[in-house]
């Protein structure tokens, strides 16, 4: 075997790195890419900060809305649904007839309890509570009907029971006292849906902001990408530093978002707590979820990676040595 041949074979073997070396080198390239990307962001702090702030604001908006909605939901949950049907009887119904009907109603399985409030008692109560005493004194006769207060056995059947009672000819009007709470519940659900849709759109916005930022980063390093591809850098190798750039932007954005959420609750929280206290809600102060910052950082990191992946897969392919 000639000398050349030996050398050549030696060259061929040693130009391939061992598996263990390659694993270690892969890790170290990850470390280097991460450090290098971070270094590039820190090298132009103002621009990077602005990008992170933009992401932070977009992330903070749905976070604050969702948190506020959650607080409101808990608050309204504190209000007990009275689940009581007020039956206003026709004037033609006498007190005796009303009392007799009360016995009948209480015997029904769908009914838990029935209270009777005579028109005279009702007038006394109304006079005390409403402050319209003078006006009531001016009336020749009591305008109020007899009232039966029906508590349904199960609150789900309240509406059904009300409809049934309303069909009775002795009843002038039947009011389900919990109806407004149900409406509030529906409004809250609607609010939650709006937050979800808005949140989804804003998250998409974050991905697009990052995609565009990364597109510019890729464009500014075009020459370098070409050289790396020419000397045999794989797509993954070329992609790696940009994915880290996206990751860092996302983490920075998440951090900004977390701080913004904390700031918003510090500004609005005390006033909202007072308002809640007026409505008789528990008086624990309103504040952000304790895990808000870590969650937002994690979310930011994932969105950062997604945006970077989008930009990289779209634009790196276009940069081919030619």
């Amino acid at each position, binding site marked *: 075997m000639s000398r*050349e*041949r030996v*050398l*050549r074979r030696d*060259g*061929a073997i*040693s*130009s*391939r*790195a061992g598996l263990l*070396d*390659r694993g*270690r*080198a*892969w890790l*170290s*390239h990850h470390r280097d890419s991460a450090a290098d990307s971070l270094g590039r962001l820190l090298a132009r702090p103002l621009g990077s900060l602005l990008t992170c702030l933009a992401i932070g604001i977009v992330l903070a908006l749905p976070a604050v809305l969702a948190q506020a909605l959650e607080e409101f939901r808990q608050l309204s949950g504190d209000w007990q649904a009275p689940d009581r049907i007020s039956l206003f009887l026709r004037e033609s119904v006498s007190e005796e007839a009303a009392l007799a009907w009360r016995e009948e109603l209480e015997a029904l399985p769908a009914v838990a309890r029935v209270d009777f409030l005579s028109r005279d008692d009702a007038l006394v109560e109304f006079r005390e509570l409403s402050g319209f005493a003078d006006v009531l004194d001016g009336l020749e006769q009591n305008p109020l009907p007899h009232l039966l207060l029906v508590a349904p056995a199960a609150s789900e059947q309240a509406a059904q029971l009300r409809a049934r009672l309303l069909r009775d000819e002795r009843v002038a009007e039947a009011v389900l006292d919990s109806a407004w709470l149900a409406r509030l519940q529906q409004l809250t659900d609607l609010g939650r849906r709006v937050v979800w849709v808005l949140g989804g759109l804003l998250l998409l916005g974050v991905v697009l902001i990052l995609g565009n930022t990364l597109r510019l980063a890729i464009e500014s390093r075009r*020459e*370098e990408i*070409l*050289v*790396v*591809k*020419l*000397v*045999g*850098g*794989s*797509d993954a*190798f070329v992609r790696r530093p940009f994915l880290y750039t996206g990751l860092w932007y996302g983490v920075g954005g998440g951090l900004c978002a977390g701080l913004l959420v904390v700031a918003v609750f510090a500004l609005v929280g005390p006033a909202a707590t007072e308002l809640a206290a007026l409505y008789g809600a528990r008086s624990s102060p309103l504040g952000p979820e304790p895990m808000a910052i870590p969650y937002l950082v994690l979310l930011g990191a994932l969105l950062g990676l997604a945006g970077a992946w989008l930009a990289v897969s779209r634009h790196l392919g276009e940069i*081919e*040595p*030619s």
Partner: protein
Amino acid sequence: MITFERVSKRYAEGRDALSEVSFEIRPDELVFLTGHSGAGKSTLLRLIMLMERPTRGRVTVDGRDLARVGRRGIPRHRRDIGVVFQNHQLLMDRNVFHNVALPLVIAGHDHREIGRRVRAALDKVGLLPRERALPVSLSSGEQQRVGIARAVVGRPRILLADEPTGNLDPALSAEIMQLFEAFSRVGVTVLIASHDLTLISRLHHRILTLREGRLVGSGGP
């Protein structure tokens, strides 16, 4: 080591860059590729690098039919070939050491091995004292030698060079050619595209001559 069998390349605009080119380069040969600019020299090198695909014909490198190398196989293929570019293609924001180390970093060698090999390659091209310098602070000839060090640091079996002496004075050009001859002597297949006929005719190696995309001469030394 490099075989072209009736290779043609037609670009989209209808221009024939290469037509029916056939030749073979043996493993320990140093071959010059010459011709006027636009004769197809660069296209021929780009076909070997898989920066282009031939329209017709077959290119074989180190026993591998390049038509069978898919998109994902290209980086691996390029790692087996050292390339020296006319305009150096150095990374201007990295120092000499990091420029030369790039192919080894890509191939996944460990740090100590990289340091050892990069210094050996820089030593070979006489630039060991400048390893911390940035490319802008180097002369054109030094930049070209950094490019050569980067091309050989991975110990490729094939070395391609596109006008490696394009911007250099005759003395420096001769020096660069001596470097290529040294690599050829240890068994590396070397293919150098150059239009500097006075220089290459002095160096007794085979010359492939292209004219308007056709191979018109493949004379020996």
